[in-house]
């Protein structure tokens, strides 16, 4: 029995969810990056193994060739879905052009840099309120007190749903995060769910509650339109075409989940990184103009979404490896973001990097994160508000990480206010 550099078994393994309880297995990814071509990675889930794409340049090449590397075939997660499940669960993420172009255009206007700037003041007010509470309490669970409520309250403001519902939506979102791991956390009939769970995103019955919520608020906005994103979604029209019921609720789900979970992850890893690297925090305190670069470094460091999968729509070649039509091809953003060929000293948290072409928002191409400018603004605002009040953090104990190979989630981390 031999042991490879990438795993403890004979074969590479970066998919066992429990590996991620100790953080991203960077040394396994580094070994794959050094291996010429693509690495074939076995996988026990439906549809079997996949090509692991771990280098920055290869992730970029794939991202920019959506006609070759399809999002609509198979699934955007590692495992294949049955055709009925794929259709029921399909969101903008699992869609190719021309449908993707149509869906994206329907909502992109809400997320342009210009339109996101409108929300900066609201975000600052929320950040100040949360930081006040955190300081008054002398610290506590950073996820629960700051990182989770900030993005959910901002996206709820943009969607136009009541702030009282924030806790409920955070709860649902937490169950969805767990759904990305190996272990189901809820009974199939939770929240009154009657849909077979394989037809639900992340196989989680919690999504049933989110769908019901989406339909209720959608009906209200149809009856009484407001200046908000839910109204835009229900009234969205392009060339006489509207979102179908399924498109609408899956869009709502993506906006709540993606607009919440991923930014929370970035805000948490950012706080942990600054606590762990007090010199870098001092650097920001001394030079506030570093905030934009610091935001990019937090994004690179956090890489909230670890991978996305594509499926080859035709025979092709990547990094000198022949890829056959129908093969799963998986872009590991967490690996690209530590690629020695692109980032000098990649394991160093350095808020002064002059160029930082990280793939926290994907590798470019039409699936580039819809909420990129929103997430960036939220991160910038939070750390800028912390800087203004000179709030430094000390981490107490280990973070509790999500057992997931898909999201770089942190469930809780105890932070003290440094005096």
């Amino acid at each position: 029995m031999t042991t490879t550099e990438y795993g403890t078994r004979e074969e590479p393994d970066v998919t066992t969810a429990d590996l991620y309880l100790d953080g991203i297995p960077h040394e396994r990814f580094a070994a794959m990056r050094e291996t010429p071509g693509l690495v074939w990675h076995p996988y026990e889930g439906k549809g079997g193994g996949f090509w692991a794409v771990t280098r920055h340049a290869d992730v970029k090449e794939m991202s920019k060739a959506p006609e070759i590397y399809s999002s609509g075939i198979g699934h955007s997660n590692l495992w294949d879905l049955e055709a009925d499940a794929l259709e029921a669960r399909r969101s903008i993420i699992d869609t190719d052009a021309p449908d993707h172009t149509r869906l994206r255009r329907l909502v992109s206007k809400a997320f342009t840099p210009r339109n996101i700037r409108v929300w900066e003041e609201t975000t600052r007010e929320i950040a100040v309120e949360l930081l006040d509470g955190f300081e008054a309490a002398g610290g506590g669970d950073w996820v629960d007190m700051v990182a989770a409520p900030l993005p959910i309250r901002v996206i709820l403001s943009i969607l136009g749903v009541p702030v009282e519902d924030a806790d409920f939506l955070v709860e649902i979102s937490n169950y969805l995060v767990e759904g990305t791991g190996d272990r189901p956390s809820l009974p199939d009939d939770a929240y009154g769910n009657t849909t077979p769970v394989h037809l639900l995103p992340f196989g989680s019955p919690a999504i049933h509650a989110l769908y019901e919520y989406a339909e209720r608020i959608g009906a209200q906005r149809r009856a009484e339109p407001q200046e908000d994103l839910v109204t835009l979604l229900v009234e969205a029209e392009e060339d006489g075409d509207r979102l179908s019921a399924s498109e609408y609720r899956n869009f709502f789900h993506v906006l709540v989940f993606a607009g919440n979970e991923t930014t929370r992850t970035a805000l948490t890893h950012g706080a942990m990184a600054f606590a762990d690297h007090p010199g870098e925090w001092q650097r920001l305190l001394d030079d506030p103009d570093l905030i934009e670069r610091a935001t990019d470094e937090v994004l690179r460091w956090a890489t909230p979404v670890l991978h996305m999968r594509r499926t080859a729509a035709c025979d092709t070649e990547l990094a000198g490896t022949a890829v056959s039509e129908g093969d799963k091809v998986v872009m590991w953003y967490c690996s690209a973001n530590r690629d020695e060929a692109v980032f000098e000293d990649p394991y160093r948290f350095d808020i002064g990097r002059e160029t930082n072409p990280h793939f926290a928002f994907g590798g470019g191409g039409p699936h580039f994160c819809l909420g990129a400018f929103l997430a960036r603004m939220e991160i910038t605002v939070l750390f800028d508000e912390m800087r203004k009040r000179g709030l430094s953090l000390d981490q107490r104990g280990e973070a509790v990480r999500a057992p997931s190979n898909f999201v770089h989630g942190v469930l809780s981390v105890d932070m003290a206010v440094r005096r």
Partner: protein
Amino acid sequence: MSVRLTVDRDVCIGVGQCELLEPDVFRLDDDEELAEVIGEGALPRDRAEAIVDRCPSGAIAIVGEE
């Protein structure tokens, strides 16, 4: 050496990266909120190549030298 740039609005998905990075050359229009070239539509070659690279939808192209 400057080059001229163009936007294929059939391909653009309205991300706004171009307006953010090169606001003197690109703007999302008020109507469809898709990118359009404003002014001369010219940039030094290195910046032009960077913006072509950064456009997520691949809608921006270099069409010729100034």
